[in-house]
C-alpha cells in the first residue's frame, strides 16, 4: 500500500462518497440493484482507506504528515484606512487533518456508514435520491471530523443537517415530516449558535498580523490551528488589554466574552449530543427515521456533538471548561439517570434505545468533565463503543420491524425460537450496552468513571447508579423480545439473510475486538490526549 504515501489520502476519504454520488446520479432510474451495489461499493472505499490510515498511524508522530491545505476563500478587505498594510484579508482554508481524537471517529463513520448501506435494503422507494442524500451525509460526517478550519467544519456540519432532513422526511415512518421539521429547527438553532460563536471567534482570536520586512499583513484566519495558537499565546492580539496597546484593541477577547462563547458552544453542541433538556428532537428522529438512517444518526451524528464540544469548547476554553467541570459532570449524571429511568418506562423498543443513547452520552460528558487523561480516554472510547453498539441495535430493530411490522414490546416475544441468530446478536448487543466486561461498552464506562472518581467522587457514585439501571432496562426489553411466549403469527418468521447477517457480524466483531483489546483504540487516543491536553492537566496539577 505504499503507493498511497504522499497522496492526499484525507481528501480521497472525503471525496470518494461524492464520486460515488455522481455515478449513482448517472445510473438509469429503474435499476435499483445497480444503485444499491454502487452505494455499497462506494462506502467501502473510505472504509478501506481509513482502515489503512488507522493501521499506519504513527502514535508518536500524530497527525503530522497527513495535513492537507489549500487556499479556499481569500476575501480581500478594504484597507484604505490602514496605512502601510500590504494585505488585509479573511482567509478560510480547505484544510484537513487528523489526530488521535478524530481518526477513530473517522473510522467509526466509515464503518457505520458502510454497514448502514448494507442495511438499506429496507428502503422501498426512490432509491436514487436515497443514495444520493445518503452519500452526501457520509461526506458531510467525514468532513466534520477531518476539517481543520472552523468554517469548513460548519459547512460540513450543515451538509449533514440538510441531508438528514431529506432522509428523515422522505423515507421515515408515519410522522416523518414532523420529525424532520423538529430535527431541522432544533439543530438549526444549534448550528446558528455555533456559527455565531465561530464568527466572534474568528473576529477576535482568528486575527493576527504577519510582519514581512516593512510590509504588514492583517489576516483573519478561520484555521483551527491559528485560533488555538492565538488563544494560548499571551502576546497575541486576542489576549492583550487595550492598555498594553496604548488605547484600543478591537480584537481583545474579554473574560465575559470567553464565557459567552464557551456557553454558546456548550449549548450548540449540547443540542446535538444531546444534553438534557435539549433531547426531545432526537427521540422523534429515533422512532421515525428509517433504520439505516437511525444507525448513522445514533452511531455517528450524536458523536459530532461530543467531538465539537471537546474540540472547540474544552480545548479552546480550558479555563472555563475547568471551572464548569462540575456543571458538565452534573449534566452528565442527569443524562445518565434521566435516560435510564425513562428507558425503563418505555413500551416501544426504539424509544428504549433512544433513551439509552441519552444515558450513554451522559457518560461521555462525565469523561470530559473528569479533566484528566483517563477521563478523556474514557469519553472517546465511549463515543466509539456506543457508536458501534447503537448502530448494531438499530440494525436489529430494522430487521425485527421488517418481519413483525412492530417494535412495541407488548406485541413482541419469543423471537429466539424462530430467529435464533438475530436474537443471539440482540442479546450480545444488549450485554455490550449494559457494560459487560469483555465487550466494548465496559471499557468506556470504566475509564470515564475511573477518571471522574479522581476529581468528583459523589457525582461518580451517582453516575454509577445508572449502570445498575441500564442492566435493568436493557434486560427487561431484550428478554421480553427474545424469550417468553411467542405469538402464533411469529412462528414462521425467517432468520437473518446474508445481507443482514454481514453487518451484524462485522459490528459485533468490532465490539468484541475493542472489548478484548482496548489498547487498539486507547493507544491511538492516548498520545493525542497527552499532547493536546498537556497544558490543561499541567496547570491543574500546579493550581
Amino acid at each position, binding site marked *: 500500500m505504499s503507493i498511497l504515501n504522499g497522496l492526499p489520502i484525507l481528501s480521497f476519504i472525503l471525496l470518494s462518497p461524492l464520486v460515488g454520488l455522481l455515478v449513482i446520479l448517472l445510473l438509469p432510474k429503474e435499476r435499483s440493484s445497480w444503485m444499491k451495489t454502487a452505494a455499497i461499493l462506494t462506502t467501502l472505499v473510505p472504509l478501506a482507506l481509513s482502515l489503512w490510515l488507522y493501521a499506519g498511524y504513527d502514535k508518536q508522530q500524530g497527525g503530522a504528515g497527513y495535513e492537507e491545505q489549500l487556499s479556499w476563500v481569500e476575501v480581500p478587505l*478594504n484597507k484604505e484606512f490602514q496605512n502601510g498594510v500590504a494585505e488585509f484579508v479573511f482567509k478560510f482554508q480547505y484544510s484537513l487533518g487528523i489526530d488521535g481524537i478524530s481518526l477513530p471517529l473517522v473510522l467509526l463513520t466509515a464503518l457505520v456508514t458502510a454497514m448502514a448501506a448494507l442495511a438499506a435494503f429496507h428502503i422501498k422507494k426512490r432509491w436514487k435520491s436515497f443514495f444520493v442524500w445518503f452519500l452526501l451525509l457520509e461526506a458531510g460526517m467525514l468532513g466534520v471530523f477531518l476539517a481543520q478550519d472552523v*468554517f469548513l467544519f460548519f459547512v460540513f456540519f450543515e451538509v449533514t443537517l440538510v441531508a438528514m432532513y431529506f432522509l428523515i422526511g422522505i423515507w421515515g415512518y408515519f410522522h416523518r415530516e414532523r420529525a424532520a421539521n423538529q430535527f431541522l429547527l432544533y439543530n438549526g438553532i444549534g448550528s446558528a449558535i455555533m456559527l455565531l460563536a465561530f464568527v466572534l471567534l474568528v473576529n477576535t482570536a482568528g486575527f493576527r498580523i504577519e510582519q514581512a520586512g516593512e510590509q504588514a499583513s492583517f489576516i483573519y484566519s478561520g484555521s483551527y490551528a491559528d485560533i488555538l495558537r492565538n488563544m494560548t499565546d499571551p502576546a497575541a492580539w486576542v489576549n492583550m488589554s487595550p492598555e498594553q496597546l496604548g488605547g484600543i484593541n478591537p480584537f481583545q477577547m474579554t473574560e465575559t466574552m470567553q464565557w459567552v462563547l464557551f456557553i454558546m458552544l456548550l449549548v450548540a453542541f449540547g443540542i446535538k449530543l444531546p444534553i438534557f433538556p435539549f433531547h426531545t428532537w432526537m427521540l422523534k428522529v429515533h422512532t421515525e427515521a428509517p433504520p439505516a438512517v437511525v444507525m448513522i444518526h445514533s452511531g455517528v451524528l450524536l458523536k459530532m456533538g461530543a467531538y465539537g464540544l471537546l474540540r472547540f469548547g474544552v480545548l479552546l476554553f480550558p479555563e472555563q471548561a475547568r471551572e464548569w467541570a462540575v456543571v458538565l459532570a452534573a449534566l452528565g449524571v442527569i443524562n445518565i439517570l434521566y435516560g435510564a429511568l425513562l428507558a425503563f418506562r418505555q413500551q416501544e423498543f426504539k424509544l428504549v434505545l433512544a433513551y439509552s443513547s441519552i444515558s450513554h452520552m451522559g457518560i461521555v460528558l462525565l469523561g470530559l468533565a473528569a479533566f484528566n487523561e483517563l477521563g478523556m480516554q474514557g469519553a472517546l472510547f465511549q463515543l466509539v463503543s456506543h457508536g458501534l453498539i447503537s448502530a448494531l441495535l438499530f440494525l436489529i430493530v430494522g430487521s425485527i420491524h421488517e418481519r413483525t411490522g412492530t417494535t412495541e414490546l407488548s406485541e413482541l416475544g419469543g423471537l429466539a425460537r424462530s430467529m435464533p441468530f438475530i436474537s443471539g446478536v440482540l442479546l450480545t448487543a444488549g450485554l455490550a450496552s449494559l457494560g459487560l466486561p469483555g465487550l466494548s461498552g465496559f471499557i468506556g464506562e470504566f475509564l470515564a468513571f475511573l477518571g471522574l472518581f479522581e476529581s468528583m467522587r459523589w457525582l461518580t457514585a451517582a453516575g454509577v447508579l445508572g449502570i445498575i439501571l441500564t442492566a435493568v432496562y436493557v434486560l427487561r426489553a431484550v428478554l421480553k423480545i427474545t424469550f417468553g411466549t411467542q405469538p402464533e403469527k411469529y412462528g414462521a418468521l425467517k432468520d437473518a439473510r446474508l445481507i443482514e447477517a454481514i453487518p451484524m457480524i462485522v459490528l459485533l466483531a468490532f465490539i468484541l475486538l475493542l472489548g478484548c483489546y482496548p489498547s487498539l483504540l486507547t493507544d491511538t487516543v492516548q498520545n493525542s490526549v497527552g499532547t493536546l491536553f498537556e497544558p490543561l492537566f499541567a496547570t491543574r496539577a500546579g493550581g
Partner: protein
Amino acid sequence: MYEGVSFIPMTWTDMLYLAPELSLAVIFLLLIVLDLFLPKRVSRLSIGWLTFAGLLVSLGLVIWRIADMNQAGAEAEAIHLLSNSYRIDDFGSLLKIVFLTGTALIVLLGLGSVREDEAITDKGEFFYLLLPAVIGAMILSSSGNLITLYIGLELLSLTSYVLVGMRRKSSLSAEAAFKYLVTGGISSAFVLFGMSYIYGVTGSVDLAVIAAALPGAIVNFKALVYVGYFFMLAGFGIKIAAAPFHAWAPDVYQGAPSPVSAFLAVIAKGAALAVLFRVTFNTLLIAANGGDATVSDDIFFALLVLAAAAMLAGTATALRQKNAKRLLALSGVANAGYMLVPIGISITVVHSSNFSEFVYYLVAYLFMTVGAFAVLTVVSRAAGHEELKAFSGMYYRAPWTAAAMVVFVLSLAGLPVSGGFFGKLFILLGAANAKAYWLVAIIVVSSVISYYFYFGLVRQMFMRSGSDDRELRVSGAAGVVIWLCAIVTIALGLFPGPLMSGIDAVFSIRYDLLFG
C-alpha cells in the same frame, strides 16, 4: 464649493460616458415605434429579444467603462457630469452591472412565460417598458445630487406602476397596480419632503456640498436635519420594502406578472438600497468627521433598527403564508433587512468593506430570487394558481427543476453550499467586526426562523404527492434562467473569492464613494 460656478453644459465626450444609459434610451424609442408599426400577426416576442439584446449592449458598455477607468488600479478619480449631478464611478458601474444582468434574466424569463399569459394584452409593451425602469435604476446608482436622484427614482417608479398593471384582464393585477401607485406616491412624497429640509438647511442639492455644509447645519438646525433624513429614510424604506414600510409588497407582488415581481424584488429594491448607501455614506460620514457625530450615529442606528425590523417582521409574517408569491415577497422584506446591515453599520477603524459585502449579497440575492421566481412561473402556470400546494409532488413531475429549487431554497435560507450562505456570512463578519453584536444575533435568529417556511417548499416538493402527476413542462427560456441561476448560486457558494476580489480590485471607498 460650487458657488458662483455656472452650469456646465454637456459635451460630446460626456455623452460617451453616458453611453450605457443612452443606448438603452435609443433602443427604447426604436422599440416603441417598431411596436406601433409592426403588423399584428408578427409575434411580439421579437421585441423581447431586441430588448434582451439592448440590455446586453448596455452591459458591455458598462463593463468597458469599468475596464477603462481602472487601468491604473482601483483609485481612479470619478467622472463628474453636469456640475456633479451625475457621477460615473465604480460604485455606480458595479451596481449597473447587477441591475442590467438582473433585467436581462427577467426579460429572458418573460420570453418564456408572457406568450402564454392571456391576461397580458400588450406583450410588446411588457418588454420594452422594462428599459426605462432599468434606466431609472442606473440613474439612481449614479446620481450625485438630489434632483438627479429624484428623477431616477420617479422614472423607475412610474414605469413599474405600469408594469405591475400589465395583466389587464386580471382584477388582482389592477388592484396591485393601484396599491403600488398610492404607496409609491407616498414614498416619493416622503423622499421629496425630506430632501426639501436637507436643501433648506444646507442650501444645496449637491451631495458633496451637503456633506460640507452639514456640520454647520447640525449646529444650527439639529432637529431639521433629523426630520430631513428620517423622512428620506421612510421614503426609501417603502421602496425597499423594509418593515414597517413593507405591507404593500405581498399584495403588489401577488398581482403583478411574475417577471415584474422579480424585477421589483431585485432591481427596484437594489436601486433604492444603492441610493440609500450613497446618500448616507456621502453626506453623513463626512459630516461626522467635521464635528458633532451624534446626528450621523443616530441615523445610522435608525438604519440598523430598520434592518432588524425588516428581518424579524419579514420572517415572522412569512411563517403562516400559504401563497408562494407572497412568501417570496416577505422573504424579500427579510432580505432587504440583511442588505441594510452593511449600510447601517457604517465604517470603523478596522472595518470598511461594507460595499463588497453589500454587492456580494445583492448578486447572490439576484440569482436566488430570480431563480425562485422562474420556478414559480413554471409551476404556477401548470397548476393555474400560486399557492404552495402547486409545488406538491414536484419531485415526481420534474425532478431536476425540483433539485434547482432546492438550491434556491438553501441559498435563501443561508445554508451552504450556496451564494446566500457566504453572502450572509460576510455580512455577519462585517457586523461582528463593527461590534454590532445584537444585530449579529438578530440576523442569525431570523435565518433560523426562516428555515421553517423555506423548507415548507421542500416539504411540498419532495414529501407530498400532488393531485397532478403529469410531467411539468419547462419552456426553453425559463429552463435557461433556472439553470443559469442555479449554477451561479452554487458557484458563488463554492468559490466566493473571485467576486469579492473583483469588487475589491475596482472599488475604492475613498474615490468611488466618499470623495473623488
